[in-house]
Structure formats: C-alpha cells, structure tokens
C-alpha cells in the first residue's frame, strides 16, 4: 500500500469533516494510505505575495518540512491549503529568490530543501491510482446523475505557479465523474470566482457571484454541483438562502460522491451538513435508501 503524507488543514477538522473523512475512506478502498502529519499548523490561509513578509511564509514551509518525515509527496484536499502550500514552495525555490530563501530558512528549526511535492488528492486519483482503477472499484455507479464540476479559482490560478489543469477549461474532476458513471455537464463558469472572499464585508456581491454560477449550472441541466474548495462549497450552498431564485441545487464535495460510489457507509458521508438537503436527489437516483 503506497502512503502519502497528508495535510488536512483546519477547515477539514471543523466545518468540512465530510471532505476529509470521505477522502480517507475512499483512499483506503483504493489501496492508498493518507498518513496525517504528526504535527501540523495553519497553512497560512492566504498566500502573501509581499516578498518581505517572511513570517507569513514560515507556516506553510514548516508543514512542508514536517511532511518529509513521512514522504516527499504531500497530499491536500482543501483548495486554499493546496494553493498556499504549492505556491510557497514555488516562490522559495524560484530563480532569483536566493536571498529571500536564505532569510526565510533562518527562521526554521531545520534546513528545508524544497523537495516536498504538493499534490491534490485528485492528482493522486488520476495519475497515481488511475481513473480506470478507480472505475474498477465502483460499487454504485453514478449512472444518470448529472453533475457540474465546479473548480473555483484557488485550484487553478495563477496557472504558471499552480500548474494543476487548464485554467479556462479544467477537466480533471469531470474525467473522474465520467469514470464514476456520472454525466459531467459542461458550463462556462467552471473556474469563475464564487465570491467567497468578500462574503463577510460585501455579502451581496458574494450572493451575486454565486447566483451567476448556479444559474449557468442549472441552464446546463445539472442536478448537483461538486467542488474541492470549502470556501466555494459553503458560499454557493449557503448563499442560496438569500437568492431570489430558488435553485435548490445540492453542493457536494467531490469526495462525498466518490465515497458513495465506492461504497463508503452513508453515515460517514455526513449528508446532514448541507444547507440544501442532498438526500432527496440521491434517493431519487437510487443512490441511497
């Protein structure tokens, strides 16, 4: 069984338990181990592009260093953690950043060599396990379920640094859901901003952003949305409260539907932790009883 160092991050321990648990359970079924870091701290939450903001970069780098006790491949699930950890590593070893690197490393307990590779769980599924192998483990096919795969911004941009998938037309999640038997609906706002960042100070803007995305998803004929980002999930799920139009679209983490399809127990999917109740749809599709 191949093991990866696993960094859950704060949100996956609080609001987004389902994102975390379903991933761990699915990994077990697929024959890989997500080994959580022995100690970890905040990822940094937002990547700071201010070059002398050393303090802000120490947090992610410490996590990257800690991962090496387990593996040089560090897996994350939260889109924000993925963005911050991957970019911190990139900046540290970018050509021309030698002075910055030296200064930053002075603040660490131990030297860090930049060798930790930050991977998203989707990359493990696609490149290391392979979608064909995932398909062979499917217990309940998602056949007939129309899914809109929504990626948001953090997984994709800035594309030169993140280098995850095509920022204008990402397909990595769509391909996964095709493998699980679902119909991956195409719509133009896969990587448009969900508005989550201004949720607190300009909630009306956040609602509007989410509304535009959901409208396009509904028009494309989808029955539910899957995402990788806790901020997106919360925003486009919860903001449906304040929208004039009732979309009633359930918003899943991709790991929930992955888990469901691989045969993870229903109670572990944590289907109650949603504003829009997803159970109706899943019952209607015969995926849960």
């Amino acid at each position, binding site marked *: 069984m191949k093991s990866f160092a696993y960094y859950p991050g704060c949100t996956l321990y609080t609001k987004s338990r389902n994102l975390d648990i379903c991933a761990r359970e699915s990994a077990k079924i697929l024959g890989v181990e997500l080994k959580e870091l022995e100690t970890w701290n905040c990822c940094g939450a937002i990547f700071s592009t201010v070059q002398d903001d050393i303090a802000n970069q120490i947090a992610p780098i410490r996590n990257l260093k800690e991962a090496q006790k387990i593996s040089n491949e560090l897996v994350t699930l939260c889109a924000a953690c993925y963005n911050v950890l991957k970019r911190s590593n990139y900046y540290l070893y970018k050509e021309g950043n030698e002075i910055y690197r030296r200064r930053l490393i002075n603040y660490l307990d131990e030297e860090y060599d930049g060798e930790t590779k930050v991977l998203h769980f989707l990359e493990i599924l696609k490149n290391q396990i392979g979608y064909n192998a995932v398909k062979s483990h499917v217990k309940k096919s998602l056949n007939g379920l129309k899914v809109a795969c929504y990626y948001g911004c953090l997984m994709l941009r800035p594309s*030169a640094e993140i280098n995850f998938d*095509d*920022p*204008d*037309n990402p397909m990595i999640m769509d391909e996964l859901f095709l493998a699980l038997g679902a119909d991956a609906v195409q719509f*133009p*706002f896969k990587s*448009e901003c969900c508005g989550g960042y201004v949720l607190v100070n300009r909630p009306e803007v956040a609602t509007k952003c989410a509304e535009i995305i959901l409208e*396009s998803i509904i*028009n494309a004929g989808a029955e539910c949305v899957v995402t990788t980002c806790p901020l997106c999930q919360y925003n486009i799920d919860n903001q449906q409260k304040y929208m004039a139009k009732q979309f009633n679209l359930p918003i899943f983490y991709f790991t929930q539907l992955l888990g469901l399809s691989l045969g993870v127990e229903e109670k572990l999917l944590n289907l109650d932790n949603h504003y829009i109740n997803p159970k109706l749809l899943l019952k209607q599709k015969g995926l849960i009883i």
Partner: protein
Amino acid sequence: MSIEKKRIGVFVCHCGINIGGTVNVPEVVNQLKKSTDVIAVLDHQYCCSDPGQNLIKETIKKEKLDGVVVACCSPTLHENTFRKAVASVGVNPYNCEIANIREQCSWVTEDKQKATEKAIRIIKTIIKKVQYDEPLQPLQVPVTRKALVIGAGVAGIQAALDIANAGYQVYLLEKNPSIGGHMSQLSETFPTLDCSQCILTPKMVEVKQHPNITLLTYSEIDSVAGYIGNFKVKIRKKTRYVLPIKCNGCGDCANVCPVLVGNEFDGNLSQRHAIYRPFPQAIPNIFTIEKKGISPCRNACPAGVNAHGYIALISAGKYQEAIDLERQANPFPSVCGRVCNHPCEGDCNRKNVDRPIAIASLKRFIADYELKNGRKLPPPVEKVKLDKIAIIGGGPAGLTCAYFLAKKGFQVSIFESLSELGGMLITGIPEFRLPRPAIKADIEYILALGIDVNLNKTLGVDFTIDDLFTNGYKAVFIGTGAHKSLRLNIPGEELPGVYPVLQFLKEVNLKIKDLQPLISGKRVVTIGGGNAALDAARTALRLGCKESVILYRRSRREMPANEWEIEEAEKEGVKIEYLTAPVSIIGDNSRVVGIECQRMELGLPDATGRRTPIPIPNSEFVINADIVIPAVSQAPDTTLFPELEKTRWGSLLVNPDNLMTSREGVFAGGDVVSGPATVIEAIAAGKKAAESIEMYLKGDNQQITRPTNREIAKFSEKEYAKFIKQDRVAMPKIPTSERVSFKEVELGYSEADARKEAARCLNCSVCCECLECVKVCQPNAIDHNLTDEFEELEVGAIVLATGYELLNKEKLGSYGFGKLKNVVDGLQFERILSASGPFMGEVRRPSDGKVPKRVVFVQCAGSRDPENAMAYCSKICCMYTAKQAILYKHRVHDGEAIIFYIDVRTGGKGFEEFYKRATDEGILYIRGKVSKIFEKGDKVIVWGADTISGKKVEVEADLVVLATAMVPAASKEFAQLLKITQDEYGWFTEAHPKLRPVETLAGGFFLAGACQGPKDIPEAVAQSSGAASKVIALFSSETLEHTPIIAGVNEDLCSGCAVCIDVCPYQARELQVLEDGKKKTVKVIEVLCEGCGACSSACPVGAAQQKNFQDKQIQDMVKSALEK
C-alpha cells in the same frame, strides 16, 4: 613549413571613444612596435574614414608592406572596406585581416588595463595569422538566372511579376490549388474600401499570362540543395487526380460529388465537395480532388466494399448509384445488410466521437429501396470468353465467384447438392434474422447475369471433379462450406432429444420437418457461445418452448457471437448460463432429462487471446432439459474430395495467394477452407478466387497483385473533440411481444432515417472514390490513379513569400476555445461580408443564419498578450476591425457595432482619417480588454472592462469577431528544410532589421510580405518589389564571386579514408583515383565548399586543410594568444 617572412603593418583604430575610451591605444602601439614581426605600427581616430584608409595605403607604399592587420571593429562591418583599400595598392586582399578589439574587447569591459592587455594579445594573434596567409583569388561561379518564388499570395505574385518583367524566368510555387493567398478571401480593403478580389484578380491573370512565369500550384518543396546562384530545388507536384491539360473547369464533377466537407476558403462556414475549386476566379481554373488515404470502413471490409462511397451516395440521395457501387465488390447487399458482422463499423472513426455509423443498416436500406422501387435486373452478360468454369456449392462463396466470373464473360455452371441455392444462408440462418425473400433477391440478381445452375447435384454422388474436367471445364471452384456439426464428446450424446445445431436449424429453416410439436412446452438447452447457438435458442423460443437456456463455458466477454445478437436474445427471454460446461447428458432410458454441468473459472489467455476456462472442483450440478442442442462448432465435410490435400483441422489446403488447392486448376474458398466464418469472409474468398481463376486461365499463374497498402485516414484527438455529437439512428424493430413468429425482427431504415444516418459520416478520407465524377467528366480529365510527381528546378535565387495565418481560436481559452459557433475570427468575418461568401454578402451569423443586430469586435485577441499568446502587435487589426465595423453598419443599418480595444494604432496613409470615419458612423469604441466570452441561450455574452469609466462591462451580443493575432504560415520544418532562421515566433529573420530587411543571412534567399512579420497589403507589396530588385541585381551579371577561403587536400598525406566526405554538409568532397591508378584521394568541389572547416577537424592525418586557416597558422595563433 618555412616561408619568407612577410612585411606586416598594423593599424590601430580608436573608433572615437568606442575603442580609445577603454583601450590605451598609444600603449598598444608602443608595445607592438617592440615586436620583430611587424614593420610599421600606426593608429588613427577612424581607420574606416577616407583619411584613415589613405594612411593605410600610403604606409603600404612607403614600407612596401605585403601583409596588413587592422585592429578595429568586427570583420562583419569593415573587413570588406579595408580589403578593397589594400587591394587598390597591390596587396592581395586576403592578406589583410581584422583584429576585433571593439566587440570582443573594449565594449565588454570597463577595466582599461585589462582591455589594453587583451587588445595587444588579439592583435599579436592576428599578426601570426597574416604571416602565413596565402594570396588568394576569389572563385568565379556562374549564376542560373531563374528565380523561384515560394508562396503565391499578393506578395509572391508581385515579386514574380517584377522579376519576370525584368526579363528573367520565374517559377511561382503555391501549395494550395489556386494562387491568390489570403487577399482573395477579403471582402474590401482599408482605408479605400476597394474590392479586394477586383484589384487582385488582374494581377493573378497577369501571372497566368506572363511568358516568363511558370506556375507550380498545388506543389510543395521537397528538398533544396546548392548555394546562391546555383540552387537545385526538388518540387513535389501533389496530384489533383485531375489532368490539368484536359480539365476545362466546367464543374460538372463537383455537382455530382456526394461528399461534403468544411470549405477552408470560407473559414469552414460553408461546405465544399471532395472535388473542388476554391473560388470561381481560381487560377489555374482546374478542379482538385482531396484525398487522405483510405477510409477505415473500406479498409476493414474483407471483401473491399467501398462503404464510405455508398454512405456518401446515400447522404446525397443517390440510392441507385450507391447499390451499384456496393455490387462492384459484393453481390449480396440484401443479405449483408442484415447479417454481416460488419468489421467496418468496428473500425469506423465516428466511434471516437459517439458511436459508429450504422453501415450495415444503410446497406440494407439501399437493397430494400431498390426492390421496393421496381428493381431492373441486369441483362445477361455476353459470353465473350470461351472457357467454362464449374462452381461446386451454391452458397455465398460459390455464388460470389460465379458472379464475378460471369461479369467477365465466362461460361459459369453452379452445382448444388440441395434443391435450392444459398448454402448456409438458407440452412443455417433463421428467417427472423434473414427472411428468404432477402436471400432470393440477391441470388436472382446474380443469376440474371446468365449462370447455368444445376440443383440436386452432389459431388462424389452425381459427379466427380474429373468428370468436370473431362466435360470441358477449364477450372473448378469448391465452395461447399462447413455443414458438419462437431460433437461434444461427452456421454449421452446419442440419446433421443439431442439435436446437432445445424440439423436443427436446417430442418426448421428449410421446413423439412415440423418441429413445433417436438419443442412446444419443452425445456431446450443449447450448448455453445456462437451465433449458431443463439439462432438455435431464439428459434426454439419461436417454436413455443417453455424455456430456452444457453450454456457457455466462458464469460460474456469471451462469447464469439455478435454482441447485438446476444442483447436481442436476452430481450426475447433466452437465459444464458455463463462459466458452465456440460459433463454428461443424463437420460431416462429413452430420452434426455437433464445435463450434468460443472462451473468454470477463467485462467490465462490461450492462443486466441480468450481466457481458458478451468473447471472448479466439486461444482457439479444438474439442470433439467428435454431437448439438448450442441452448438459448439462446425467443420467442412472434406470426405467429398479425398484426392485434395487437407490441413490438420480437416479443411482444404490452398495457396493463400491464389486459393488454388493441391490440384492444378481447382480452387477453393469460404468455410470449406477457413472453417466456420462469416458471410463477408466467404464473399471475399469467392471474389478473390474469381480474380485468381481469370489470371490462371490467362496462363498467368503469378501471385495476384493486390492494391498497395494505403494510409488509413484518421483524425487527431482535437479534431474528434470538434465534431458535434449525434447518436446513430436507432433501427426500428418489432416489439418483443410479437417475436413468437418467424417475422423479421429488424424493420429497416426509412428513407429519412437513412439520409440522417448517412449524414453522420465524417468522410475520413474526404474523397470516397465512388467515381461519380469520372462518369460525368466530358473531357475525361479525372484519373483516380494518378500519383504525385517530382520536378527538379535549377534556380539562382529564392524569394520566400509564405505569408501568415491567423492564430487558432482554440488557443484562446477564455474566448471559448473556438467552440462557440457565433465567435468568428477576422478572416471568417471577411467571408461573411464577402459577396461570394457563405451568405452571399448578407451579414448572417453561423449558428442559425440570423442577421446579427449587435456585433462585438475584440481587438488584440492573442496579440500584445505575452502571458497567453503572442507578445507582438499584429499591426493590421486596428484598421481591419474599423473596416469590418463600417461594412457591417453599411449592411445592417439598425445594427450596433462595439469594438473593445487597448490602443487604436493608425500609423499609415489615410488610416487615422479612416478611424475617424468609423467613430463618426456611430461605432462604439470601448477601451479595455475582454476577459471572458461565453454562450447564454442564443446570445454570446462578452465580459470586459471599460478602463475609462473604470467599470466592468457586460455585453449581450449576437456575434463576436475576434481580431486574432497574425502568426507565420511557414512551419519550423519548412524553415529547417531551407536553412532559414526564424525568430521565436517563427517569422523569418531578415539580414539586418533596418538596413537589409528583404535579405536573409543565407545567400540567395530573399523575403517578401508577411512571412517576415505582420504587415498590411501595401507594405507587403512594397517589400516584394524590394526583394525582386535584389534578385534582379543578383542576375545582372553572369557570374558571382565565391570566397576562396575553402578547404583543400594535401594529396601526399590523404589516405582516401573518406571520413571528410561524410562530415561535409555541402556535398563538396568526393573520392578520386590518382593517375597512377592505385592511390585514392579526396577531391574538393570548390564551388560547393563553404569553408566551414568540418573536414579539417575530422581528417585523422591533417590532409584536409582550410585555406588561410592551416593547422600551422592556428597553432601559432593559439601559442601567441597564450603567451605570458
């Protein structure tokens, strides 16, 4: 090597402060004066000035110098100046050398001390070189005074005309079928709004009529050899499959061509035929057939049926032509349309988009259509050949062989043991899959050719092969099939109630016995996994059995029966027990009561690639059965011909090349040779045997020449992604409730169904070779067997005018990847505006043909965008967008035109005024970039910024026009072929960006038009005339000087090892035998040598020496450079 010491003078240049500011020139002069190698050392502020040159000349005269070193700038700048100066006072110019103390010394450091030291070292090194320099004379090379212009857009046309008008021969090469380039696609030109075609076509006609211009259209460069003045260019003249001298351009061929593909001249906004002429004013006015190898369906068919051809003809509504084409390869359209296992569909490229074309169902349609609409049988073929041929066995193989031989005029007789023709088609295949009238229809057609039929004649009983030969038959074909059911070889097989599958099917199909009472209400178990097993199980259901079960020892994946037959059987209620094998048949005294079975599991794959079933121990169980039908396999009954050799499987042994058996003149094919196989394979064998027999009777016993392998047409992943998904038209079937009789299950396509299904064809190979065009071409200009031709040209100069393309919209992700139908690029909009365009000059949008009421133009789409596409400005877009917006407003008076721009650049005569006109006409300019374009309903939404008001803008448009970046049309491979340098984007690099813009660094190559960088029409034309004048200047003298600094060979040292011949990139060396007739040495072909020095470094004995770069010289120079 000792030579007389030269009298060398050194002249050190200050170059103002360029050298003098860093290098201490007086110090250099002082140091050099100490050297015993020099006679005179002088310095001057500007040696290249007249006084400077005079100083050099005077000193030479005074000091009687015979060697000169000028320490100054790079030799690329003034070497020529100084060499000419010294030559004017009698010094050989090749004994004057430059010591570069500017670019390689003063400019690269600020350290004066070190710069001075380095300058001295450089100069001393060059002094050593001059010491050994030989006096040389330039070589005189003849010039071929003919030019080649590559690319016949407006730039190439202009260059060709200018050179031709000066009296020289020009070859004008164009890769497309017509000259004219992009300018012929434009509607009007800015800023004058002249009609583009109206001003271009006179020039095109002039080219065609010019006595000095040879047009080479639809041609490509294959290779280029030689050097300035003496190029040898090999041209590939791609075949048009149309003879240019015969074609009169009438267009009858295109009218009958059933294939439609995207018309690239209209930016794929319209369609054209496989045989086409890009536009009516095309020059030359010749049609061209586009072919891309062979379509996979046609390639997959064992009988070589041209499926692509008949599908295309169906899509054009030419059903009779379609079935005639089908019968050229297969006389069984009605049968194969129903029961063929259609390998063609398995290979159909459409499977990469959605599902393959329903090729067999389409074939059935044309067969049914012909019958329904009063088929006319062909008249008997005149028996032009005297030879009689006997066919034994009236199944598909025998009938096909008879059909093709009868068509050739042979006298053919069929001998069939049953009272009906058809073989396995009538005995083995049940009526609900293949009704008798469908078989009869095909056989009737075959027999109409005039074939003698002898029924109830069994070989070995009624006649022998010897009898046939005695009775004057010259050749015999055996197609007796495989009608023997194989046994299970398990206990109980002799019990009453066990029915071998072929016996069962034959009795039902030929209505020999009424089996209904026997089967009705019984439990029928069929053993096997082939089509015969399924046919038996489904037949049993129709005879009213209680239950129909199939036992198969492997899993469904391994089942040899056709997938679709398995599905139908299951739908009808057949139960299939997989991984189950019979052990014995259990009887109750007089009849079958059950089968003892064993469960199996799958082991490793066997020779056929299927996994071998392995019994699971102690898994035995019994299932009840009243009737058991073993259907494991069939074999030919070869006891009929004891004298012929057999294979170890008991089938007939034939020569695979011509299907002849071990007996001379006796051929065989179909199941009797192959064992149980498909109908189409039997047909293929019959057809091949007919060809072989014809060859044999001609006395030509050679192998039959099969058509050479053609490349199988396919598309790239990206191209597949672009096709719109459209599922295949479902075959109408009778409901399962009605499947109690033997009524045919599949009902066949209606005409509308067939047209719709045929239109799904991707036309993989473009031309389908239905040959309809050949039939209508009155001048007989079309020949589908033509091949590319090659021609070698000798020219003295080459003008590159390969032009530009537009950046592919697929590269612009945020603008919809080129997937949005109503987002077009600039050239597509030109076509929309053009009177000869897809909408005849009316502005309409591609998706639904509606007139767009609001059009958004996006400038800098891919230009000035270093992150995503091109960093440069494409230069023409500001103006053509203004023009397009104006023209749009002229056509659609209530239309609204909005232009997003970064800057509006109007540098050019009349350009600013034209832009003003655009704004005056009410065109809205918004300053800002567009971030995203997407579809919403039937509108295109454009998100952008207005940077003047600082607001985000959302525009709901009907049509969006992207002014996509200009990119070079010439590929990297093309540039490498010609050895021309390109910049990072692929534009050809000029020799000097300011002073030599139409030349390249490769001698003899000149640049015209947009291949050098984005430019508009007047600029391209001006540059072309510039390039032409360079060519004319080159041709103005009969010879050219070629540098004498080339390689030589010391014949005393040369051992003739020929290592240098392999390394020479210019083919300038060859082996020669010396006069004594023994020793071989290498000879240099001086005009070809470019003096690169590769041979010198490769030569193991030092025999290859470069003139004025001899080993001795270089050793001394290195020594001097390293001196402490």
